[in-house]
């Protein structure tokens, strides 16, 4: 008699509200209370909500893809530059008289190429993904400047602008949609086989390979997915700002990876973390930045805070039993 052991899929609620997410949520509530106490007239207003939305929506959107990829152990530091490059290509195509959708198509094709480039270096050649994507980060910054010819490119699209600034019953539509995308991704990761494969591939590559999960292919696809999401993020930025600037996306990678790490992920191993944690992390970091803005504190404090958050988050991962360096 052959015994078949079927492991039950984890409860979806556990995916949505992991313990690190709960801690973050408590922090968020405290933060909002502090903000409300400090700036009672400015903080909890619909105007500030739309400011917050325009700052947080796109990083959150890219962070969702980056978080899924990180679950499988795929780190892509070039997401920020990719967003800038995607925006540059999109705006440049619009400037050359191409239609909206054709321009978006060209930009997405570029993103596919960049993703495949990163992926082949890391997956086929086994190069360190942190260093490879650092290389493509600087390379893409160069490409962005070349495409934009060192000036910002105007590209005002009424449709896209309205979409990014729309509100539904006082709630910014884009923020709501991105949040729903995050919830949906978290649920899909929990209930589908692909989701479990992704988590397994990041948790133990060798074991997953033996279990028949195509780890290499999966990681390749996730590199491409991250690049494509970053590119869409760049296009959304063009919609928001009506132009592609040369500095767009500089430093965005840490604005994305710091909250992901806050949400319980690890940069050096996959398999841990929850999407909703990453989403909450983005909200927390953007609320901090919003508060700094409202109180007109030197914006460079944001750099120091982000750096400290990364250090604290990776240290927390080591304490949780993550990979130790020696």
């Amino acid at each position, binding site marked *: 008699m052959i015994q078949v052991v079927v492991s039950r899929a984890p409860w979806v609620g556990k995916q949505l509200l992991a313990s690190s997410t709960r801690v973050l949520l408590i922090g968020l509530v405290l933060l909002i209370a502090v903000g409300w106490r400090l700036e009672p007239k400015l903080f909890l207003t619909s105007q500030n909500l739309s400011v917050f939305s325009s700052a947080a929506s796109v990083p959150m959107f890219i962070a969702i893809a980056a978080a899924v990829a990180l679950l499988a152990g795929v780190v892509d530091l070039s997401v920020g530059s990719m967003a800038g490059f995607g925006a540059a290509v999109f705006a440049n195509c619009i400037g050359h008289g191409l239609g909206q959708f054709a321009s978006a198509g060209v930009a997405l094709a570029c993103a596919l190429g960049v993703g495949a480039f990163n992926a082949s270096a*890391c997956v086929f050649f086994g190069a360190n993904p942190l260093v490879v994507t650092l290389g493509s980060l600087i390379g893409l910054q160069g490409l962005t400047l070349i495409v934009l010819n060192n000036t910002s490119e105007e590209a005002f699209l009424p449709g896209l602008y309205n979409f990014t600034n729309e509100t539904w019953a006082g709630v910014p539509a884009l923020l709501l949609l991105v949040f729903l995308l995050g919830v949906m991704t978290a649920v899909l990761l929990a209930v589908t086989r692909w989701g479990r494969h992704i988590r397994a591939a990041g948790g133990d590559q060798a074991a997953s390979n033996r279990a028949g999960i195509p780890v290499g292919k999966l990681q390749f696809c996730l590199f491409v997915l991250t690049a494509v999401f970053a590119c869409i993020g760049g296009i959304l930025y063009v919609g928001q700002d009506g132009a592609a600037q040369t500095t767009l996306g500089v430093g965005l990678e840490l604005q994305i990876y710091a909250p992901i790490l806050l949400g319980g992920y690890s940069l050096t191993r996959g398999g841990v973390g929850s999407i909703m944690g990453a989403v909450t992390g983005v909200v927390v970091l953007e609320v901090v930045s919003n508060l700094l803005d409202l109180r007109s504190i030197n914006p460079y404090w944001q750099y120091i805070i982000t750096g400290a958050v990364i250090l604290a988050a990776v240290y927390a991962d080591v304490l949780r039993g993550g990979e130790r360096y020696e």
Partner: protein
Amino acid sequence: MAKSLAGSEGLLPVTDWSHGRFGKSGPWASPGVRTATTLVVLWAILLGVTGVLDPSFVSDEALLAIAFNMAVVGVLSAGVAVLVISGGLLDLSIPTSTGLSALCTAVVLNHVGSWPAAIAGIACGCGIGLTNGLLIVATKVNPIVITLAVNFAGEGVLNMAFGQEFPLLKSGLHDLGLSNFIGVPTITWLMFGVLLLTGLGLSHTRYGRRAIAVGGNSIAAKRQGISLARARIATFGFMGLCAGIAGVLYASQSQIISPGDTSDLLFPAITAVILSGFSLQGGRGSFPVLILGIGLLSTIPTSLIALGATPDWTQLAQGLLLVFAVSLDGFRIKRGRR
């Protein structure tokens, strides 16, 4: 032979002033000699193509520009090379540590004098390097992640502390930075000195051999009684020292310094080291080959400008070269494991 000694399984990996001598069938079998030849050929092609397309490139001015660029990148590479050989992965905080020490030098130079300025700059670099080392040893977090975060935080400090631009007064340090010795800038000679001392120190002192041992096989090194924590702090401190020296050299040849100036020094330094055959796995690498790598990497910006390209192309080229170098290294490690 060289492979079995220097591979990850070897107890005491060799450093390679002698890389070429132990080839199985003549020197060509050795990866060190192959890398060196490739770099020489690439460098010659780059110089040749630029020289043919733009004859004014083969002038004293362009070559001097390359030599100046080489000086700063070279000193940084010495530090990165020691880090990589000792298995410390990389230091991504180079832009801020170099920038902060350059700015420290500038401030002290304008208010006190040349010697205190140099000391202040070097001390500042050392401080950041030691901070990195202590953080890594204390938290046991991957050095790439730690230094990335330190760099980001440091950028904030750099911008808040120094604002926009910082003009430098004329001084003794400036005279040194802009002077020549036998037709080559003095600071380039200084860079060669740093590289020579570092290379000899690695292979001929106890500390150097310990660093190599830690990089080749950290577990074996630990069993032999070498303190990993001390080795890490020392190597990151040395990296900081090099960044400090590089910052002083940078300040000694500029009229104005601004916070973002040093951001494009990281990539040539890292790429030169990895392209010269230093493996990110640790334990192997050759300093004579490194000089070729530094030469190639510091020629790229000057020759691209001579060819009429904007500085953006330099960024693109550096990014692509880094990806290429890391892929090659990864491929070698993968093949070595099989």
